[in-house]
């Protein structure tokens, strides 16, 4: 959709600048006159929301780094000092901690939007892959950020996750020691995590630039999944980004920020874990280590593999399944064989998608529970203990569905499913008639 530029510099200075550095033209073509499908719904506002949250995290993070001390004997106290003594530290720390959670809520909705409306399909494969790269970088950043307050969950979360690396054959132990910079999670680990936690958001910002670049070549997808028509009729399919979508995105951003503010000001710790208000203690493991909520589905997949698969032992198998659950997103554009983008016109696959979303939520539930807890009770054994359907089995079932969705359902449905009739154009979909 990168057509000829419509920017016309109005003043002498902007003409002079445009001949030397056409930066105003770039902004104009990208965010003012950018032709955008006229049927975008609110699911398309999460890109803008994510951009806002990246900025919130970077700004609040730079401020926190002015007061935080990355030392194993001082980190915990320095965070408490930020929360109690630093002017407005209570607010900025809360924005940063809750901002991470809201960042992930938005990214998950953004990803489910992409899955539902086929945003990963040609010609947007690279756009999708860059998105998965951003997601991976976000996970790494969030994980290391969670270690910095040096509470019990920080420490033991870091311990569990870095020990996953140790599951790799041959090189696992050496890589783990290299990551730790010692023989265990300690000062060296904390210090480097701080350094990388500061670095990665800027890497994310760079990849976001590529993501937007890749978006602006084919332009936005849209809920009916049709391409914008070529030539003059294409104008009837689109609206200029400004004011139509700046206002729509702006409204969504404000609503989202209102919910965010509710958490920041009225329940700043509700998404945290009580154990993280206890300083890290290498001699005492909390009874129940759980990652932050946004990692729970993957934690459930990790724990679902309790059996050896051929030469792969259960521990390595779990690690492979967990990373595979994300890696599979990279090849998704080639796993989905249907040329119909939007699930609106895929009557069967739509249901499989809805179950996929439920499976992801269910995996999150399993991740928060002890594997031996019961989903529901079916009776009592001879000693009077309750027996029933374990969360472990539930998690295994959902893990199976997670992978089957990508590896079986999407490839097959594209071949056997008869899609519903689609409108002739985006204009026809919006206005109900085909005026072309």
């Amino acid at each position, binding site marked *: 959709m990168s057509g000829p530029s419509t920017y016309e510099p109005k003043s002498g200075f902007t003409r002079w600048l445009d001949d030397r550095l056409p930066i105003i033209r770039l902004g104009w073509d990208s965010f003012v006159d950018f032709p955008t499908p006229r049927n975008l719904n609110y699911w398309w506002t999460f890109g803008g929301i994510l951009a806002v949250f990246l900025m919130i995290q970077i700004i609040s993070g730079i401020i926190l780094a002015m007061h935080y001390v990355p030392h194993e004997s001082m980190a915990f106290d320095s965070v408490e000092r930020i929360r109690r003594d630093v002017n407005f530290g209570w607010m900025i720390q809360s924005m940063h901690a809750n901002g991470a959670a809201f960042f992930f809520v938005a990214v998950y909705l953004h990803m489910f939007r992409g899955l539902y409306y086929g945003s990963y399909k040609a010609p947007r494969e690279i756009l999708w892959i860059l998105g998965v790269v951003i997601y991976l970088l976000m996970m790494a950043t969030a994980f290391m950020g969670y270690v910095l307050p040096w509470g019990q969950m920080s420490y033991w979360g870091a*311990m569990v996750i870095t020990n996953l690396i140790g599951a790799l054959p041959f090189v696992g132990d050496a890589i783990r020691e290299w990551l730790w910079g010692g023989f265990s*999670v300690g000062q060296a680990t904390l210090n480097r995590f701080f350094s990388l936690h500061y670095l990665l958001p800027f890497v994310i910002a760079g990849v976001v630039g590529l993501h937007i670049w890749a978006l602006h070549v084919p332009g936005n997808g849209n809920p009916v999944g049709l391409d914008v028509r070529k030539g003059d009729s294409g104008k009837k399919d689109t609206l200029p980004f400004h004011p139509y979508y700046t206002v729509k995105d702006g409204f969504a951003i404000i609503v989202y920020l209102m919910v965010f503010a509710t958490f920041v000001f009225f329940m700043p710790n509700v998404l945290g874990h009580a154990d993280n208000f206890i300083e890290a203690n290498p001699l005492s493991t909390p009874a129940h280590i759980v990652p932050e909520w946004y990692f729970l589905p993957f934690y459930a997949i990790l724990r679902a593999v309790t059996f050896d698969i051929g030469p792969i032992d259960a521990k390595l198998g779990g690690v492979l399944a967990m990373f595979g659950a994300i890696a599979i997103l990279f090849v998704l554009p080639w796993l989905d064989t249907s040329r119909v983008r939007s699930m609106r016109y895929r009557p069967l696959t739509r249901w499989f998608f809805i179950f996929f979303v439920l499976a992801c939520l269910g995996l999150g539930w399993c991740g928060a529970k002890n594997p031996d807890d019961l989903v529901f009770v079916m009776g009592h054994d001879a000693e009077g203990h309750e027996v029933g359907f374990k969360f472990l089995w539930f998690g295994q079932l959902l893990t199976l569905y997670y992978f089957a969705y990508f590896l079986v359902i999407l490839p097959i449905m594209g071949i056997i499913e008869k899609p519903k009739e689609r409108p002739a154009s985006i204009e026809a979909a919006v206005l109900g008639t085909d005026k072309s």
Partner: protein
Amino acid sequence: MTEHNGAPDGHGQEPSRRDFIYIAAGGAAAVGGGLVAWPFVDQMNPAADTLALGSIRVDVSQVSAGSEITVMWRGAPVFIRHRTEEEIADARDVDLSALPDEDARNENAGMEGAPAYDANRVLRPEFLIVKGNCTHLGCVPTSQETSQGGEYEAWYCPCHGSHYDKSARIRRGPAPENLPVPDYFFESETVVKLGLSGEEAANSGWAVA
């Protein structure tokens, strides 16, 4: 490169001097790049002062039979348990085939790959000394001292349910290996030194089973 570069100087498909220079320059750049990159990778490995903290001495005279202490060594816990006669008998009355991990996991010199008999995991049967991080994901198992010793009344990892026996060998659960025996020896009747130099290791009395 040879396919495109050979013809003009009349040597047909034979590699030319230019091909050689091209590959040699590229090779030198790759090796040079690797040499420059290595310090930036290696700086993340344990530093000299971290390595220097590799050995400590522990007085075990106050650890009475049937009790245990946990000491910090290299930033991680080490369990030192003074076992009773019953515990030792219990630990030794186990068939190798009952063990998921048949390797003694003894890090002392000469003990690589020794079978997981209790005798291969202790220097003096009454003192069991093992690293205190679960071999699954590194949690610290709870001990029988806290009445949460698990099915074998020894150690139990609460994170993902691994049960260890009275020789700290994995018996049930996701952990793949026995709790490892660190390199140590008894400096005197009551003092254990964790972390050995090579010479001391030679005299430490570990028998190759």
